[in-house]
């Protein structure tokens, strides 16, 4: 066999940990022969057995914009991609980020402004990707298990874990890892990059959005791998 992945295994579980503490993204294969929906159910059942309480729903979406060709310099400069994101945890805000670049936090009116800036930034076709799911509370932990969808199809699962009391991501990574192991078993992620390179800084909403952006990009790239028999 050419690929080592079966189709189902391409559905990644992606782990995030979030504000005002920290966040982590990684991937693990879903058990063979299981659909995204079944895996989400498995996860939520484990959480409920742990004693977590349901607390409504959440949604994070992301849209990609290209720099318009007319504004590019003649020196063969490549256009940067800009991502405009929303998070139901911050309903009045809109996040605009470049890969490896700055993150802008604006009011939700920013969406209207993007329409006006059509000459500089053009929306990429069918690029909208989002994750929706249930929010769980367990002690001081906030867990959000969501299904990542692009257009009509489910692409993967996102798991976000937030530990509210701690504001420095690297401080509570071991603690988070232990918590993740309690319901993900051995499929726990490595420490996300946000933890390492920003030692001792206070975690903010932008750090969460960067992790979601990286997660979405990863899932998009997976889709591009030519695979037969996509579910």
């Amino acid at each position, binding site marked *: 066999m050419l690929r080592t992945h079966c189709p189902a295994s391409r559905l990644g579980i992606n782990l995030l940990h979030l504000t005002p503490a920290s966040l982590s993204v990684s991937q693990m294969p879903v058990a063979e022969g299981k659909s995204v929906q079944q895996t989400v159910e498995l996860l939520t059942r484990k959480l409920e057995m742990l004693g977590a309480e349901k607390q409504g729903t959440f949604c994070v979406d992301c849209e990609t914009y290209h720099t318009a060709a007319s504004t590019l310099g003649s020196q063969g400069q490549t256009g940067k991609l800009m991502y405009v994101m929303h998070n139901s945890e911050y309903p009045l805000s809109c996040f605009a980020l470049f890969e490896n670049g700055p993150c802008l936090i604006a009011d939700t009116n920013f969406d209207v402004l993007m329409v006006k800036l059509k000459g500089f930034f053009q929306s990429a076709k069918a690029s909208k990707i989002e994750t929706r799911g249930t929010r769980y509370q367990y002690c001081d932990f906030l867990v959000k298990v969501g299904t990542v969808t692009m257009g009509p199809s489910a692409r993967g699962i996102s798991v976000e874990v937030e530990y509210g009391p701690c*504001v420095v991501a690297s401080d509570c990574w071991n*603690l988070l890892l232990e918590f993740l192991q309690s319901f993900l078993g051995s499929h726990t992620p490595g420490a996300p990059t946000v933890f390492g390179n920003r030692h001792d800084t206070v975690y903010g909403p932008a750090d969460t959005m960067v992790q979601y952006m990286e997660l979405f990009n990863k899932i998009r790239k997976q889709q591009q791998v030519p695979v037969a028999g996509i579910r």
Partner: protein
Amino acid sequence: MADVLSVGVNLEAFSQAINAIQALRSSVSRVFDCLKDGMRNKETLEGREKAFIAQFQDNLHSVNRDLNELERLSNLVGKPSENHPLHNSGLLSLDPVQDKTPLYSQLLQAYKWSNKLQYHAGLASGLLNQQSLKRSANQMGVSAKRRPKAQPTTLVLPPQYVDDVISRIDRMFPEMSIHLSRPNGTSAMLLVTLGKVLKVIVVMRSLFIDRTIVKGFSENVYTEDGKLDIWSKSNYQVFQKVTDHATTALLHYQLPQMPDVVVRSFMTWLRSYIKLFQAPCQRCGKFLQDGLPPTWRDFRTLEAFHDTCRQ
């Protein structure tokens, strides 16, 4: 059933006793009638005396007989209310419908319970008196009163001295910043910020710590009008737990003659929370137990333990 029968017997005895009392009263009144009438007219003085004495004797005999009868009956009637340890409430035990109104058994239990409570409270007050938690020197009674000059009460320390002690502690621990304010007269309030982990509000009375509240680094510690919020607790369970432990520490560290040492010990202990999220439990080796990190710090060794793992 036996209860009902005995009640019936008692009732009969009662009515007989009442009759006996009536008989006794009439025989007694006959005695007095006889005395009142005196000696009736008879031919001879001797005859009169004889008749009077005989009548008087008869009357006294009948009084004696009635009295004996009443005594016999009163034994039959019994004294239920006085025989019972619960006095009149003991009559509740005569209630034939025990199942519907189990008042009597409940009453007995309550009685036993209150007896036990009294006994245990007595023991507890004895023990507590040996280990007083009163922390100030002026409450130590006679010995403090005897030497007022040598041991001034630590409650009247000049604010300047308090400031000095606090600023020395502030300089001692670089990762801990202490902000002192006096919003309500001479009593100081401290806002201690420990790294990027937590904030502690400490309410002082002179150099005694009266109250502490631990909150998260990201939580608001001020009220809407900009004063330190000394009443509301943290939104996070972990800091509520740490607040409880800090209050325990206040009672643990006590040395009424050297209040500055107490404050310094408390702050040293508090500083060990800098690793609140980084230190695993020294007993079970884990980070989490019931969703909480090790929130307890040993008073001597400052090692981290879960609340249930400490000894």
